């Protein structure tokens, strides 16, 4: 039994935590929160690029470090823990992974080295309005050369250099790679619950793009991309959830009420114990997802779905009860609780809400039972 990360991988995680605890304090996160003109933390992004994190799972022949997905999982946990206000998931889990999964040789050669170097920022554009996007009935269209339509909200859409856009083509769905620095692309910043990660509306009018994968046949590719992203985001959520429980625990030890620390009362103790238990469930499911991701196992769909749902619920619980444990202080702008509450919600809906993933999970189990 070897169901854990290796010593080297844990060392990478420790180094990342140390780096982020210095470079990505909540004071730094707040700079992005408080400044509408700041879409992300540029110096942190540059630092992360210099550390080589963006190319962690990009093969060496394309300018990456050539490490594996397990190393990327370890980094994802630290990014989530630190609430890093950078377009890491959009660029790495979405753009780089889509290119690795379905990109042509030319596309890979053109973009992967640029991603690893921090020169390209990605975005994944699928949502077109309230409700989960129905990939079989998208309003955005692609005709083989021109893209038309509107996507909202697009995470990191205002700072991305390239977007992956889902679009209707030949009665199916295509995944279209678009250079956003061209005429016909209109970007409008959109306000969201988590201003530490910027969002935009993207309007495309006769915009040039090229497919990743086949025309109208991208559905399996998108499913796989989502499964892989779900595992990585589950690590971000697990990191955030752990830190929220730690924060609440620390506060409960030092805050006195009725003559003793509030952490001595069972109403608080049991709540925090519940949070810790949920975090273990999330972590164990995320590890299983990491195993499935790193070995490209047949179990990836159910492993990814279980990791995503468990981690979404753990971070939700931890972030809301962190505020509750802090009492009135927890409801002030100055105390950091709301940063976790905001991020927890972003990560829970970013690649589909838990409801969608519960459905994916049961479908995967049904397919397995029928096979």
């Amino acid at each position, binding site marked *: *039994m*070897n*169901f*854990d*990360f290796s010593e080297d991988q844990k060392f990478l995680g420790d180094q990342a935590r140390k780096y982020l605890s210095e470079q990505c304090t909540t004071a730094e996160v707040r700079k992005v929160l408080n400044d509408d003109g700041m879409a992300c933390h540029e110096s942190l992004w540059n630092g992360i690029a210099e550390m080589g994190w963006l190319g962690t799972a990009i093969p060496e022949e394309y300018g990456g470090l050539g490490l594996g997905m*397990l190393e990327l999982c370890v980094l994802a946990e630290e990014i989530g823990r630190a609430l890093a206000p950078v377009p890491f998931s959009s660029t790495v889990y979405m753009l780089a992974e889509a290119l690795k999964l379905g990109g042509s040789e030319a596309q890979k050669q053109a973009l992967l080295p640029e991603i690893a170097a921090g020169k390209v920022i990605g975005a994944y554009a699928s949502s077109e309005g309230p409700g989960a996007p129905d990939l079989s009935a998208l309003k955005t269209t692609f005709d083989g050369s021109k893209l038309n339509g509107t996507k909202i909200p697009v995470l990191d859409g205002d700072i991305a250099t390239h977007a992956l856009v889902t679009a209707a083509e030949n009665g199916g769905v295509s995944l279209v790679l678009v250079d956003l620095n061209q005429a016909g692309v209109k970007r409008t910043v959109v306000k969201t619950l988590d201003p530490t990660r910027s969002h935009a509306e993207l309007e495309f009018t006769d915009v040039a793009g090229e497919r990743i994968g086949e025309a109208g046949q991208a559905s399996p590719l998108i499913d796989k991309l989502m499964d892989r992203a779900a595992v990585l985001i589950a690590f971000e959520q697990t990191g955030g959830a752990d830190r929220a*429980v730690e924060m609440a*625990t620390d506060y*409960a*030890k030092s805050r006195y009420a009725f003559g*003793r*620390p509030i*952490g*001595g009362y*069972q109403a*608080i*103790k*049991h709540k*925090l*114990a*519940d949070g*810790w*238990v949920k975090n*273990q*469930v*999330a*972590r*164990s*499911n995320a*590890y*299983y997802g*990491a*195993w499935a991701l*790193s*070995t490209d196992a047949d179990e990836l769909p*159910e492993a990814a*779905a*279980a990791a995503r*749902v*468990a981690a979404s619920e753990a971070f939700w619980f931890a972030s809301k009860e962190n505020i509750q444990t802090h009492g009135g202080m927890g409801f002030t702008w100055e105390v950091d609780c709301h940063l976790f509450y905001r991020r927890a919600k972003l990560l829970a809906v970013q690649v589909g809400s838990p*409801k969608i993933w*519960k*459905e994916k*999970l*049961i479908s995967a*189990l*049904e397919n397995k*039972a029928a096979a």
Partner: protein
Amino acid sequence: MDFNDTPEEAAFRAEARAFLKANLPEKKQAGGRERGEEFLKRAKAWQKTKAQGGFAQITWPKAVGGRGGTPMQQVIWNQEESSFAAPTGPFQIGLGMCIPTVIAFGSDEHKKRYVPKALIGEEIWCQLFSEPAAGSDVAGLKTRAVRDGDDWVINGQKVWTTGAQFSDYGILLTRTDPSVPKHKGLTMFIVNMKDPGVEVRPIHQASGGREFNEVYFTDVRIPDSDRLGEVGAGWKVALVTLMNERLAVGGSPGPDYDEIMKFGTEMGLMSDQAFREKLADWYIQAQGYKLTKFRTQTALSRGDTPGPENSIGKILTANQLQDICNSGIELQDHYGLINDEELAPMKAIFQSSFMWAPGLRIAGGTDEILKNIIAERVLGLPQDVRVDKDIAFDQMKSG
């Protein structure tokens, strides 16, 4: 990351499997809560075979009859044994909790007298701690031991004693000094369960069965030589026993997500969105429990001390079992009330575990005590207020 054995583990697994195959039939269906004379006889015979094969108490040192093996080998043995129709159970408390306490605190005489016979299944042990007024707060127990010459005289009552009806010996926690605070006046003894002053009465449980017992002590004489640990040091001795309990308590036997998914499929419920969402939750919890055990086993396999994560086991599984049984019954509508195995679907597994589940949330540490343990020992939060901490036991309020 993988789920494979190391070469050494694989070799041990093969050896264990070969031994099991040579000595036991394969399991045909999930084991029930088997009881009775016939079962006990088979269990004793199997324990003897196991001990002679060198597979009883794998982690114990060879000097006390164990294998001198690793915790991971014990895990592997348990996994393999559970896939055969092995009559285990009656020795779990004795070998898991009582005998380790005897080894830790008993005299050489005790070890020579008791350990080998327990190991080969000839003598069965029970643990006599809980009392009607001392459950989660077990140090509040009232059973008295009064010194009389070379003996101690015991009077009082224990409750929820598993296996007392077929036990030969027990470890008995008593109050020897009521004039000091509760933790300081306790002393542990070895008691002969066949003594005429020991009366075992089955408890009629809410589930309808009578598997647990009350044990009454009336002027039972125990020689001072059968004391475990110092007079007044009983709490320290009990903590060793309870530490072993936490290692032993694991999952909750009964239907899980796969059984209710199978049932839901048969009932044509797989198009019911609410049922699908609940199923997803159950799968995630079940995986959370299973995979967390894998993390613990990984630590053992690497020779590390496992973290506290395994303590989530009983809280998760007992509550999930209760929830699944509740849904399994409601899915059958009014018919779900029927608990006749001949009439109820799936041999009434939902109905029978429905009545067991409340007990599983209480036995071996209630949900509340387990949450306190996580909060205090893992998260480092302050202990509950203990107003009786410095008060002499005989001055304490109780009820």
